[in-house]
């Protein structure tokens, strides 16, 4: 019996419910110091004078470090090396790190950091990306403030628009979205007398952290070991930011030769760590009256903040998703990631796609209405199916379950377009896709390692380079290992992810862990299995081809033996039962100037259907129910897949209806706390109906493809379309607050 496809309980669940899971802040080390960061109070300026004399005298303060104390390079490498670890002469956003204070306890460190006196000569900041783009005088990045420009070009847009019967043209805006992981950013550095250093903390990408530490301390990779602690939510927020924290603890640990811990205060965390890029979108699309999407022209501008961090790759994903999951032969999309004097924005579930998909799917409904066709039929005429070509010129050979997801949400909801409904109630749909993995934008990192170790008592320990951040990777990979080895699931354990165990396996992002680490583990397991098979064949006196391994039982030649006895026999004969696994993705291709290429190896697909009731007096949108169908290839664990759908969908609901993070006139985040930045609570939760669709991916373990990000991506436009269906008010600016709907109702 296979455990793949079963709803087995989460591997670390029983420890977490007892509060026994160790998060970074739960660790204590002898002689440990606590760090706090001295930050820029201004959005742009030149540092004139730093005076630490007063805070150095505060009892318990052990030291204050600036860029002058960095033994290696003053840089936190991410994609482009434009971000300093500690500011030298200029500061470029409110919260930019200038110095690190370490003290005997956390309160003292924080108090001292807050009292540091820094004199900065203010320079005029660029806070609006539309002004920053090609600004004549102020150059924050290059001479145009553009981190990245991508152009997607197909066919002849001008000619195609002339042939369209209907054209819809709009501007859309989407705001910051804060990850709001419940565990704040947390990190510890432990120096060793042999000249090595260990980093333990909350993170998605231990290999990014290792690179940052080797850079600032000038150490070789074999002297830096990074171990992931239990991580209390990531969603992209712990992709690149932990590299900064790791530097902030590693430097004092290295200099003072003591362990150092740093936990961000919640307000600090929300002020200074990455968020979803705000976006400004101009979108023009046209169709013929028989419902064929003929032409798309768009300009997509994202606000990257003060340093480039991940903006270039965020823009890549956003651009590939810029026309949605449709066939369209005439496309002209220009995308720009722009520098401003605000907190650097970065990775957040969906990675540049939710913004543009809000525009895409709002446009689709407006086109359908103008043609006089129902929105489902209009989508059906244009969606991608096997054999079709994407906007980037990629031919889809397999695993395209979009139409089935659309059929499923309709079927489960019992709704059909045009069906009568009560006053104020509306239904809205969105169909989307998601390029799985890093794709051509992160081609060089598209590899993973794994190690599997079978012990003499049958217990199995495996290591991978991707991380468990709540998504359920440990459980899913354990299921894969169990099936590949034919061993019972309870024999399998995973080591905490540790850079000293496996080769650099890239980041835990882009919904890539199941497919990448799953395939690497499969590679390792096949090697071990071949040894076990040979041994079992000699024990059963039959050929290896006749042998079946099943949850610890081995049968062949009409006989049955225990897998444990085969393992023991291997050990007695000194045969190796450990192996390394390695996996690289099939080739992808991309051209920034034409936007053409095989952008991703495979795509996940989804349809969302939202049912709302709008209060016509107050403009309040009551989300009654949402049906979310996702083609995941194969659900290795349907319960965990549903968990991803439910959790991601609710984050999408927050993005659609309530999460409204803005900056003030100085460029500071206006609402950096849970009382002012409102995320969905238990009482805001609508009924979510998760639907799993499985169109297997031939290159994935057991047919699986990643999809963890996708549940968030199409929720906002489905709700916007439902609001329009309910009260004929079209909201083009997220979130859909009662004020905006009320204003829309008033203006009608």
């Amino acid at each position, binding site marked *: 019996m296979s455990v793949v496809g079963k709803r087995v309980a989460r591997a670390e669940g029983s420890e977490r419910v007892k*509060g026994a899971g160790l998060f970074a802040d739960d660790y204590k080390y002898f002689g440990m110091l606590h760090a706090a960061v001295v930050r820029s109070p201004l959005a742009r300026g030149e540092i004139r004078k730093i005076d630490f004399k007063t805070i150095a005298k505060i009892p318990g303060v052990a030291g204050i470090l600036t860029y002058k104390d960095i033994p290696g390079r003053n840089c936190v490498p991410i994609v482009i090396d434009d971000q300093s670890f500690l500011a030298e002469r200029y500061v470029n956003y409110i919260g930019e790190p200038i110095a690190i204070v370490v003290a005997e306890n956390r309160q003292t460190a924080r108090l001292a950091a807050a009292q540091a006196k820094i004199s900065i000569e203010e320079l005029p900041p660029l806070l609006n990306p539309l002004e920053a783009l090609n600004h004549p005088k102020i150059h924050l990045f290059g001479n145009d403030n553009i981190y990245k420009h991508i152009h997607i070009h197909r066919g002849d847009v001008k000619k195609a628009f002339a042939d369209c019967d209907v054209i819809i043209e709009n501007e859309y805006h989407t705001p910051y979205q804060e990850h709001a992981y419940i565990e704040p950013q947390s990190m510890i550095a432990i120096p060793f007398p042999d000249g090595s250093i260990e980093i333990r903390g909350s993170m998605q990408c231990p290999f990014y952290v290792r690179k940052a530490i080797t850079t600032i301390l000038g150490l070789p990779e074999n002297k830096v070991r990074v171990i992931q602690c239990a*991580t209390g939510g990531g969603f992209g927020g712990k992709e690149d930011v932990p590299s900064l924290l790791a530097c902030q603890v590693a430097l004092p640990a290295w200099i003072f030769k003591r362990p150092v811990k740093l936990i961000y205060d919640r307000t600090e965390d929300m002020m200074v760590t990455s968020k979803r890029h705000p976006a400004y979108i101009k979108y023009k699309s046209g169709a013929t009256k028989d419902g064929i999407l003929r032409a798309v022209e768009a300009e997509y501008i994202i606000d990257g903040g003060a340093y480039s961090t991940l903006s270039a790759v965020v823009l890549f994903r956003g651009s590939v998703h810029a026309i949605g999951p449709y066939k369209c032969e005439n496309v002209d999309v220009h995308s720009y990631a722009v520098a401003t004097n605000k907190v650097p924005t970065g990775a957040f579930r969906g990675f540049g796609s939710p913004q543009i998909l809000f525009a895409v799917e709002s446009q689709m409904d407006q086109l359908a209405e103008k043609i006089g066709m129902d929105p489902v039929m209009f989508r059906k005429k244009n969606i991608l199916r096997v054999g079709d070509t994407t906007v980037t010129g990629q031919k889809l050979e397999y695993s395209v379950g979009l139409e089935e997801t659309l059929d499923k949400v309709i079927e489960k909801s019992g709704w059909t377009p045009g069906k009568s409904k009560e006053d104020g109630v509306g239904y809205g749909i969105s169909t989307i896709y998601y390029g799985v993995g890093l794709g051509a934008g992160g081609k060089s990192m598209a590899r993973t390692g794994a190690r599997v170790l079978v012990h003499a008592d049958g217990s199995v320990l495996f290591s991978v380079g991707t991380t468990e951040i709540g998504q359920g990777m440990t459980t899913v990979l354990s299921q894969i290992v169990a099936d590949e080895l034919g061993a019972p699931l309870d024999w399998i354990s995973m080591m905490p992810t540790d850079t000293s165990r496996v080769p650099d396996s890239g980041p835990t992002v882009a919904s890539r862990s199941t497919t990448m680490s799953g395939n690497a583990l499969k590679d390792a397991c096949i090697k071990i299995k071949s040894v076990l098979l040979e041994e079992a064949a000699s024990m059963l006196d039959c050929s290896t081809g006749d042998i079946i391994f099943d949850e610890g039982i081995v049968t062949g030649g009409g006989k049955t033996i225990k897998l444990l006895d085969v393992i023991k026999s291997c050990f007695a004969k000194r045969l190796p039962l450990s192996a390394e696994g390695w996996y690289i993705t099939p080739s992808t291709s991309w051209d920034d100037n034409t936007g053409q290429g095989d952008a991703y190896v495979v795509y996940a697909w989804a349809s969302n259907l939202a049912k709302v009731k709008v209060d016509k007096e107050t403009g309040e949108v009551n989300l009654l129910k949402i049906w979310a169908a996702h083609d995941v290839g194969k659900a290795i664990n349907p319960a965990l897949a*549903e968990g991803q759908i439910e959790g991601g969908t609710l984050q999408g609901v927050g993005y659609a209806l309530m999460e409204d993070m803005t900056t003030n006139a100085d460029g500071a985040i206006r609402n950096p706390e849970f009382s002012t930045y409102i995320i969905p609570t238990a009482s805001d939760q609508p009924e979510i109906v998760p639907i799993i669709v499985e169109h297997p991916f031939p290159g994935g373990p057991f047919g699986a493809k990643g999809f963890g990000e996708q549940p968030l991506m199409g929720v906002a436009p489905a709700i916007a379309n439902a609001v329009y269906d309910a009260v004929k008010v079209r909201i083009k600016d997220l979130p859909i607050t009662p004020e905006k709907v009320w204003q829309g109702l008033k203006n009608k």
Partner: protein
Amino acid sequence: MIIKFKLNGKNVAIEAPGGERLIDLLRERLNLVGTKEGCGKGECGACTVLLDNKPVCSCLILAAQVNGRNVMTIEGVESDARLRAVQEAFVEAGSVQCGFCTPGMILSAAALLRANPKPSRDEIKRALSGNLCRCTGYEKIFDAVELASHKIMKKAASK
């Protein structure tokens, strides 16, 4: 001052400096790290403990305030058979993702089930609305509370 209180069923007497928060006493000095700090402002509920059976944010309570009272943390839930059902239900229903909000969530759920053994879905939503979870979408957490309620009632009936 020296404070005396009942912690997870056991008597504790300890010097509590003025101004020390309950969460710091628990985590830093008593090594009960199951209580998590998410915001330090009483906004996220991750640090929820039960004070005389009522859920409170331990980041908003001074250690001195628990003098003479009864405190239960997630570590104490383990020794309470009735409330262990809540933990088991969370595992069974797949309610844990990252697990950082889980201890606080379980204590709020346990307090609810003590006061209201058979809550409706709406009552569950209201009772847990002070505990933020960013991973799960709450759906499977509500399922777990219903499952725990069922388990506890079944056990009581079989006695």
